[in-house]
Structure formats: C-alpha cells, structure tokens
C-alpha cells in the first residue's frame, strides 16, 4: 500500500497558536478520501501543508513519496483547488485554459475544453463575472486538466448552492472514474462525503480519530440500545465510541470486531453521518474517565 499522503507528528504553528499539532496519518492511494472534522480541527492547514502552500513547523509530510512542491515534477502530480476557489477575475475562461497549458507539461487540453463545453461556460467571459459554482468548476477544470495523480480539494463546495454542489461533485466523480486518480476532499458536510467518498478520515483537534474505508467502517460499527446499564460491562472487542443514557435506557455506538450477541441489545447499523458525529463528539482522552462515574449525560 503506497500512501498518497503520509504525515508524521506534523505541526504548524502561527505565532503562538498551533493550527495543527502532532498529526500522524497515512492515506492509501486509489481512494476518494473524505477528510472531515469540526471547524478549527486543522483540515485546511493539513491540506495546505500537503500542497506545499505551507511549510511545516514540526514533523514531516510526504505526498506521493516526496516533499510537497519539491519541484516541477512533484507539482505536476498534485492538483489543488483551494477553499475560496480563487481564479483571476480579470482573465477570461480561455485565458485560464491557456495559462494551464503554458504551465503544465502534462496538460490535457481536450479534457479541459470538453469540461468547459459541458459546463456551458463562455470562453470569452471574464472569470470575475462567473457565479461561485462556475468559478469552482473552472478551478476544478484547471486542477484536473494538468492530469495529476492526486487531487486535493479543500471544501470546494462549501460556498455553493445545493444544485451547484451536486454538479461539482458529479463532475468530479466522472473524472475520477475515467482517470486513475486519488482524491482527498475536505468537508464538514457529511452528506457530500457520503455521495462520493470511499475512504474516511475524521480529524478532531488535529488528531486522526478514525480512518478507513467507508464500507469497513460501516461494517464495524453498531448502534446498541437497551435497558440502562454500565457500558463497562461490555465484552472485550466492543469499544464504546459514544454513549447516552436516560433513566431507563442506554444507547451506545460501539466499534466491534464481531457480531453483537447479547440479546438485551437492540442492534442497528449506523449511517456514515452517525459515525462521523460520534467520532467528532467523542472527547478523546476524557472518554474513559467519564465512563466511571456514570450519570445522565444527555
């Protein structure tokens, strides 16, 4: 398994605050990876470190086996669409395609023109007068037509309306299907990720809370509900991710290696959204401590 992005104790400090700290992760190739986490978790910082837009304060990061932005060859392998999907307001759509062709030896002009045609963008139109969705599509076209091996998208759909969001993700999926391409895409909207991702990384407070293929993760998690009881009494191999209790009832989201056999539990599968929310709300190191003095938590 080759990692498209491998980070080890990666940290980025701005003056006195750490935007990302002690982040270790390895993302395998050939996936559409959803990077999800609350605001301030360090998603944007991590992706900007991966593109070489930022230099790490501590630790190391390699992308496709090399330091990010190490040279023209490395840059050619990574496509990036930033959060604000900025394009040159005074240049036309055609100008953007030209600059892409000038600056990228692997430029796929046919792909670029085909996408612009499909999107019904006027090549003579200035990019500054495009709608937000069209701008994002133009930025994505530039990133795709350089024919990268890895496409990094930082919340590309955050500012788009639902229709533009669907079109953007659809266009992305079509290209992924045609090219052999790894994609890392950050979002705080699980619904977007559910549609396109087959691999999930949950980042909370710059730590990876869970990472894995979506199908494996869904298979390994269960929601249990039953009469009130102490989750400490669960068999080994069942890890409690979140718990909530009422006077009579206990509801748990657990990670388990095998089937849940205890007949006292009503066992239900989890959705991706449940899973993400569970890991995002789980407060890391505090979790075991809270388990001991059990009370009405929520």
């Amino acid at each position, binding site marked *: 398994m080759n990692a498209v992005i491998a980070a080890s104790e990666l940290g980025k400090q701005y003056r006195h605050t750490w935007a990302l700290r002690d982040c270790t992760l390895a993302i395998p190739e050939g996936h559409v990876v959803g990077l999800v986490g609350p605001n301030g978790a360090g998603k944007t910082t991590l992706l*900007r470190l991966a*593109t*070489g*837009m*930022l*230099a790490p304060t501590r630790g190391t990061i390699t992308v496709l086996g090399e330091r990010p*932005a190490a*040279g*023209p*060859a490395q*840059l*050619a392998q*990574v*496509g*990036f669409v*930033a959060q*604000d999907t*900025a*394009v*040159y*307001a*005074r*240049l036309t759509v055609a*100008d953007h395609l*030209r*600059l*892409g062709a*000038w*600056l*990228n*030896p*692997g430029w796929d002009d046919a792909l670029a023109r085909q996408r612009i045609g499909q999107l019904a963008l006027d090549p003579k139109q200035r990019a500054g007068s495009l709608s937000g969705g069209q701008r994002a599509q133009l*930025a994505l076209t*530039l*990133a795709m037509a*350089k024919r990268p091996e890895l496409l990094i998208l930082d919340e590309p759909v955050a500012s788009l309306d639902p229709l533009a969001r669907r079109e953007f993700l659809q266009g992305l999926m079509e290209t992924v299907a045609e090219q052999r391409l790894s994609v890392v895409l950050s979002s705080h909207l699980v619904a977007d990720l559910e549609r396109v991702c087959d691999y999930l990384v949950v980042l909370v407070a710059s730590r990876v809370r869970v990472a894995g293929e979506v199908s494996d993760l869904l298979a390994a998690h269960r929601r249990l509900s039953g009469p009130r009881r102490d989750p400490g009494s669960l068999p080994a191999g069942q890890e409690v991710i979140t718990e909530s209790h009422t006077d009579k009832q206990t509801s748990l989201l657990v990670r388990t290696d095998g089937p849940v056999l205890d007949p006292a539990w009503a066992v239900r599968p989890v959705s991706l959204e449940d899973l993400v929310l569970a890991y995002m709300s789980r407060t890391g190191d505090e979790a075991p401590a809270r388990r001991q003095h059990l009370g009405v938590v929520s």
Partner: protein
Amino acid sequence: MIRLSLLQFRIQAIIAAVTLTAFAVLLAATGPYLASTYAADGLDICHGSSCLSPATYFTASLARSPYDVVFLLSTGIILLAPAVIGLFWGAPLIARELETGTAALAWNQSVTRTRWLAVKLTVIGLTAMAVAEALSLMQTWWAAPISQAVADGSGAGVAQSRFSQLNFATHGITPIGYAAFAFALGVTAGALIRRTVPAMAVTLAIFAALQVAMPLWVRPNLAPPDRTVLPVTSLGGAGPSQTGPGGDTFSLYALTIPGQPGAWILSSGPVNAAGQPVSTTPVACRSVGNAGVSVGANESASLPGQGPPAFLACLGRHGIREAITYQPASRYWRFQLTETAIYLALALALAGYCFRRLGRLS
C-alpha cells in the same frame, strides 16, 4: 511562465506604452522648435568663449516660456516614473495574489514558485528599467540645446548644471537604478505586508525618503571631494552679503569655480590667511561697499562705485580667501555609475530577500 507574466501584465504594459507615446509626442512636437531657437540665437555658429553671451541669452529667454513648462513637466514625469512603477507594478505582484487567493492557483501549476518569481521579476523588472530609461533618453534628446548652453557657461534662466538635483536624477543612467529599486521595493513590501494598498503606501514612503536622502547625504560623499582655496576676487558670479549692524559680518558663496566649469560645489566660505573660517568683516572694509545691505549675486555686477568688487578687493587685501569643496565635472559619469550601481545592488538584495521569503508565503 514568460507568457503568463505577459498575460497578467497586459494592462500595465498598455498604460506604460500610452504614457511613453504621449511623452514622445509632447517632446517631438516641441523639440525641433527649441533647436531652431537655439540656432536663431547664434549658438550653432559660435566658438569657445564667444558662446557664453548667446548661451546666457538663450537659457534666460526660455525661463517662464512654454519650454520651461515642458522641461519641468517631463522632468517631473521621469522623477515620478520609478515611484509609479514601484506602486503599481511592484507592490501588487505578490500581495495581490495573496489577497485574492490566486496564489493557490499560481503556485500549484507545474512551476515552482521560485521560478514563478524569477520570471516575473525579470520580465517586469527589465520592462521597468527600459521604460524609465526611455523616458530619460527622450528628454535628454529634447533638452540637448539647453545642456549645450549650460556647457557653454550659461547659468541663467532654465540652465542647471548636470549635477543639479533634477538633472542628475533624470539624465544619464540613474533612472534605470531608481526603477529597478522601486520595483523590487514594491514587491518586497507586498511580500511582507501581504496587502496591496498598505504595501503601496510603504513603498512610496521609503522610496521618497531615499530619493531625498540620496542627494543630500549620500551622493556628495560618493567620492572624496576636491578642495581649493581661491582669491575672493576671482570668484565669477559670487556675491558677498554683509549683515549685522554696520555690516560687521559677511558671508560669501562661490557659485562657479574658475577653470572648473560644471563642477558641483558642495560647500564654500571665506577663510583667513591661516585657513580658518571667518565671518567678521575686517574693520577697514566695513565702510567699503553697501554696509548693512545684503547684496545678491545678480546685483553685484550692476552696482556702481563702491560696489561689491571694491568690497571683495578689500577682503582680498586683508588676506581673506574663499575655501571651496567640490566634485569636478569630470566625475559626472563616475557618480552616475556609482549611484546606479548602489540602487541596482539594493534592488538585487531585496529580490534575494523575496526569494527567501517566498517559501513561507501562502
């Protein structure tokens, strides 16, 4: 990458081309008439010292004429051009990319950001230097008759020496250095401040401060000045001025040095026989000349009787001479080269800093 630089530079390039064209039209429309006036005043057929009188008449007659306006206007444009280049070509180069977020687009193509900056600095920097020097060369061509009249000894009207603040900074090769420096300064300010408008303000402030400091404190010391002590009566065009009650103090400035036409006089003042500066009028001379009346250089020649020449002769009889520090006219190109080299070196240092800084920008 060169093509991208040109694509993004289109609008600025068009404005520069329009400015250059307008400048050329203005000077081409008025230049020939200036040259014909020069010929009509007899300057094209005079030789040696016989040129002084027509040259003086020529430059004096241009004062407050439309040519004076064209001269000052074109000089002003040449002086301002580097500042404008620094503000509108330099400051936005990196700052605008950071401000609009397009840096993420520019620096994620298959071109390292070092190369991106190298090409941009080269293409726009060379254009900046070429534009500044083109303006300067056009005005030098236009002002050639005036320059020749100055070389013939005229100091009247629009005549200014080559070392004068305005001429030194607008003729020769100094505009190249100023343009390169102002551009690099703008780029650096943009890279540090990351916002275009504040970067422009800082660029303007620093460049203006340097353009004032340079002629005042740096340029006079680019080479150790020559010193000479001359008889006060030999000073052409110098005027004594007596001040204080009863004219008991006086001052005396040299405006030109005999045998050193076009020299840049840095300081001058009367000294006694021992070489010490003096300002007290010898008692015997107090009744000579117009005691208590300030006499300027222009009046000195026309005052009859006990005028300044008699006063100067009296000072001379009492052992008072004029001490002058100056830079000879022959050092003009050495000074041009040195000052241009200083500005180019500063520009290169700033560019080098930008490359180091670039890795930490996003």
